[in-house]
């Protein structure tokens, strides 16, 4: 008798359908490229965040005229730049800064885009109209001009200001994406059913609508994360990014604007460029696997 009960329980456990995380994990396991990317990504991030913990950022940013443009050696693993600063140290701190910036920009734009997109999509009508006109306005603004102006007038330009200004412009795409999905979801009967069951609007949005757009959010989040690393670097390269006192991948690459550095002192800009390439590619590959996991028809696993 007891045996019977036990087997019944076992079956029940097996019957539970795989959760979202399990599906994602299976998809990544099936895709060797994504799996490799994930391992590389995790290794780089662990190393960078771990190592920067033991490094003194001030010490690295200190100018030392006795060791300008040294080639890689056992003292300076990746040589030094025109201020005699250790490139390897700058690479570690710079990767950490660039990734942190990218992560927070993506996070903040996701939060703003998600909440406004869900509101606009769920309520539609006038709410949708107001939010969409605000988005149109932000898109119509000349982004680069604004960034340049802010960079010039802000007294202390640091990572936080940079995150803030980028967030101001980048949430619109996400809001539009989420809105379009929410618009199609709200016409489905399960939303109507919740309404007739007396569930308040905020509960419907959070507990019924949100889980159904979640796969879209995750995929978009990962792909944006990769894009935003490049974004920071390109702005810094143009000279409107972070000051040299806060090393980032962009500052390292921007040294290559000097033709002498570009031609003869590869150790300054090649590692940073490679780092960006590897980070962006591996995040993208993981993102692609997630994208497939989110869509049952594309799944491999």
């Amino acid at each position, binding site marked *: 008798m007891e045996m019977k009960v036990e087997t019944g329980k076992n079956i029940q456990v097996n*019957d539970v*359908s795989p959760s979202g995380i399990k599906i994602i994990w299976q998809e990544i396991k099936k895709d060797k490229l994504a799996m490799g990317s994930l391992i590389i990504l995790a290794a780089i991030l662990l190393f960078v965040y771990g190592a920067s913990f033991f490094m003194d950022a001030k010490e690295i940013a200190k100018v030392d005229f006795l060791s300008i443009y040294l080639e890689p050696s056992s003292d300076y693993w990746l040589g030094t730049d025109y201020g005699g600063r250790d490139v390897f140290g700058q690479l570690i701190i710079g990767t950490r800064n660039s990734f942190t910036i990218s992560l927070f920009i993506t996070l903040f734009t996701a939060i703003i885009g998600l909440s406004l997109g869900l509101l606009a999509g769920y309520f539609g009508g006038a709410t949708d109209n107001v939010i969409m006109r605000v988005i149109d306005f932000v898109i119509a603004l000349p982004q680069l001009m604004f960034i340049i102006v802010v960079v010039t007038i802000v007294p202390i330009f640091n990572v936080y200001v940079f995150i803030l200004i980028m967030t101001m412009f980048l949430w619109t795409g996400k809001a539009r994406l989420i809105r379009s999905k929410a618009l199609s979801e709200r016409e*489905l*009967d*399960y939303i109507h*059913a919740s309404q*007739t069951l007396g569930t308040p609007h905020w509960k419907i949005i959070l507990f*019924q609508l949100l*889980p159904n757009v979640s796969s879209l959010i995750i995929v978009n989040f990962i792909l944006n994360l990769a894009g935003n690393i490049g974004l920071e670097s390109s702005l810094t390269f143009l000279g409107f990014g972070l000051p040299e006192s806060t090393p980032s991948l962009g500052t390292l690459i921007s040294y290559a604007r000097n033709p002498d550095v570009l031609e003869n002192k590869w150790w300054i800009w090649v590692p940073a460029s490679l780092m960006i390439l590897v980070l962006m590619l591996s995040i993208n590959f993981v993102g692609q696997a997630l994208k497939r996991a989110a869509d049952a028809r594309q799944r491999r696993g």
Partner: protein
Amino acid sequence: MTLLKLDNLKVHFPIRGGFFRRVVDHVKAVDGVSFELQQGETYGLVGESGSGKSTTGKAVVKLNEVTSGQILFEGRDLASLSRREIKPFRKDIQMIFQDPYSSLNPKKRVLDIIAEPLRNFERLSPSEEKKIVQDFLDKVGLSPESIHKYPHEFSGGQRQRIGIARSLTLKPKLIIADEPVSALDVSVQAQVLNFLQDLQQEFNLTYLFVGHDLGVIRHMCDRMGVMYRGRLVEEGKSEEIYENPQHIYTKRLIAAIPDLEPEVREDKVQLRKKLTSEYESTYSKYFDENGRAYDLKPISSTHRVALQ
């Protein structure tokens, strides 16, 4: 006892166009519908697609905004209540949806789906809640172990029963069934319909049954109304309408029911031809110059027809 009374209900949707998206016209989805539902009966609304039958049902649960008219539920006018004020009535009026594939949230477990109304109206401990959900699952003929499954693990008929279980948890007085079986195959249809009738007995439910399948409506309903272009054209007891249709639209609708006897096929064809010519010659008797059906006029104590 009258449970629900619709009085000259109108649901119009604006058509916007031109410069500044002005309202240029209205789609009169429901245009002056009046009928009553008695406690414990099943009232059928039939009509072709686009005739406004579903819109009428949805207006009762406030999924559509009412343009004018009254929806009296136990004497209170639902049409004039705001979303907040209507909340207590949600308990008494529930809806079963047409499409069992979209009416259950694919990301939710059965337990969460069926317990949703309970969580809105009652404070229950998780174990009490689980017990109630399992009881209802048992009632609708699903295994109580399925509470941890997701909707996609069930067939269409099973899903529809989950939807029915969800609408029953609050012990409503009135259930709006919006074509509850039209997405199911025939063998499952009969199963679900009989099961709805059993539940009606058990919980003393009143159904407003919206459908286009005349066979299903006849099987289910005590009384019925025939809708055409947002208007009721005929209303009465089911047998009156099936045996003695008075309005030309009803006649043609009944004549369109396919017959399984091959011998009578020729007769049927003749009957339909006859009705078509009758429709053309007597059109003005049933519809005014705008093609709108006239108001209902009683021809017996229970039977009303839209005649000039």
